[in-house]
């Protein structure tokens, strides 16, 4: 996809978003609902920004991103390493596959009680849940990438005197990169969703906490602002990851 087409698509997306916001605004203003329950987005956001100081907002975003980055980096790293090792070395693969398959369908949120028991209410419990959310999609996609390589590429490598780890690093890993990248992107998105849920339950900071706290104060404006912030933070970071992937892989692989 060329840059100009991407900009055009982005512009269309912007128009669509503005249209929804405008509809919401109109419905809230002239629909007769109480502004305490269903405020127009402009009033909600402006009001919330007046009540919540800017440095507090920045603090919530920062701590949320910090948790997500820690958990994601740990989960994604382990996911790639284990999947590549297990996908490449049959014995390792047979060892890890059943336990991974057993744990994979469990939603990361179901681990929250366990995380609290193990790690208390501190940072570690949130990071652990995010770690789980990132690990499984990264593992699954990297596994698919390493085990799904066209055998002729490996054979070609072998005729060029590559064996063992050299074949893994020079042929298998680059060939699996598109799948690994897909896994990273899915893992990032899931980490985000799980982060907010974890903060809703057990935190005194972060965007999820901000929303939960606002609910107790019946501050609908801040809830709306929090939701929009989460969406925007995910959108921006996902776009950045996508841009990095396009730069690295876009030259040879359609992304």
């Amino acid at each position, binding site marked *: 996809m060329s840059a100009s087409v991407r900009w055009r698509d982005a512009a269309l997306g912007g128009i669509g978003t503005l249209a929804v916001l405008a509809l919401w605004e109109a419905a809230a203003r002239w629909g007769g609902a109480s502004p305490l329950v269903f405020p127009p987005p402009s009033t909600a956001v402006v009001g919330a920004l007046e009540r919540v100081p800017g440095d507090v907002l920045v603090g919530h975003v920062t701590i949320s991103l910090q948790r997500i980055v820690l958990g994601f980096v740990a989960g994604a790293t382990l996911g790639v390493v284990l999947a590549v090792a297990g996908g490449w070395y049959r014995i390792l693969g047979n060892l890890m596959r059943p336990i991974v398959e057993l744990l994979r369908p469990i939603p990361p949120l179901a681990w929250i009680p366990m995380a609290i028991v193990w790690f208390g209410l501190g940072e570690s419990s949130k990071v652990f849940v995010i770690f789980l959310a990132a690990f499984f999609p990264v593992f699954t996609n990297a596994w698919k990438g390493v085990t799904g390589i*066209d055998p*002729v*590429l490996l*054979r*070609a490598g*072998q*005729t*060029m*005197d*590559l*064996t063992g780890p050299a074949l893994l690093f020079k*042929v298998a890993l*680059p*060939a699996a*990169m598109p799948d690994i990248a897909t896994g990273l992107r899915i893992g990032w998105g899931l980490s985000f969703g799980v982060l907010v849920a974890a903060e809703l339950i057990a935190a005194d900071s972060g965007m999820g906490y901000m929303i939960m706290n606002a609910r107790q104060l019946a501050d609908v404006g801040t809830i709306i602002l929090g939701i929009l912030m989460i969406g925007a933070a995910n959108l921006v970071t996902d776009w950045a990851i996508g841009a990095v992937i396009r730069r690295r*892989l876009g*030259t*040879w*692989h359609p992304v």
Partner: protein
Amino acid sequence: MSGLTGAPATGDAARPKIEVVGLAKRYADVDAAQPAVLERIDLTVAENEFVSLVGRSGCGKTTLLNIIAGLIAPSAGEVRVDGKAVTGPGGGKGMVFQQQALFPWLTALQNVEFGARTRALSPAARRREAEQLIDLVGLAGYAERYPAALSGGMQQRVAIARALALDPQILLMDEPFGALDEITRIDMQHELLRVWSSRRKTVVFVTHSISEALMLSDRVAVMRAHPGVIAAEFRIDLPRPRQRTHAEIVALHDRIWRHLN
């Protein structure tokens, strides 16, 4: 160039480069009641000789070539190169695969350079060698393209350049032009002969096209299926480039055709 005329090319032609002795192959996961994929294959290829294997699809040509390459193990018999048993791939046996086998994450030039990676060359010399090979296969100007941005014929040329970059003594080619249209195919045949004449190699060339085998080879081995055997061999003592309409070519075409049916 003298290499273009007559076969075999060197005075030392009798020296066997590749010997396939009593070779048989049965894939392990296949019903034992089925006939073997290959049975009692004996084939000797002299140094610098160009030998073609022709046969119908499924008669075991790729299997035989993969065994010669050392990529898969035979069930019985052995392959010897320079008198030594082949135990694995690598070690100066270049291969051009039937399917697209370039590394898609490398440019054409990088793919060819990759082929030269085991040679004792400085990075600069390796780059120069790769550029020369890209020129040799007529792809100057396409060196920086990724495989996805090359036509099938161009990809096959890069694959040939990559195999040549190993500077192999043996070049194994599995229907390298099978996916090409007739016109590109004939161009590529000429180019292959040109390359072969400038860089002498022992070539085993798999094709299902009788006329392609006749245009290129010193010798044609005809394979038959179920079980895969070499049914006959034909020597072609004609200078290259050859005319498709040459009486001897036409007669050989006929005889090979009858062996295939």
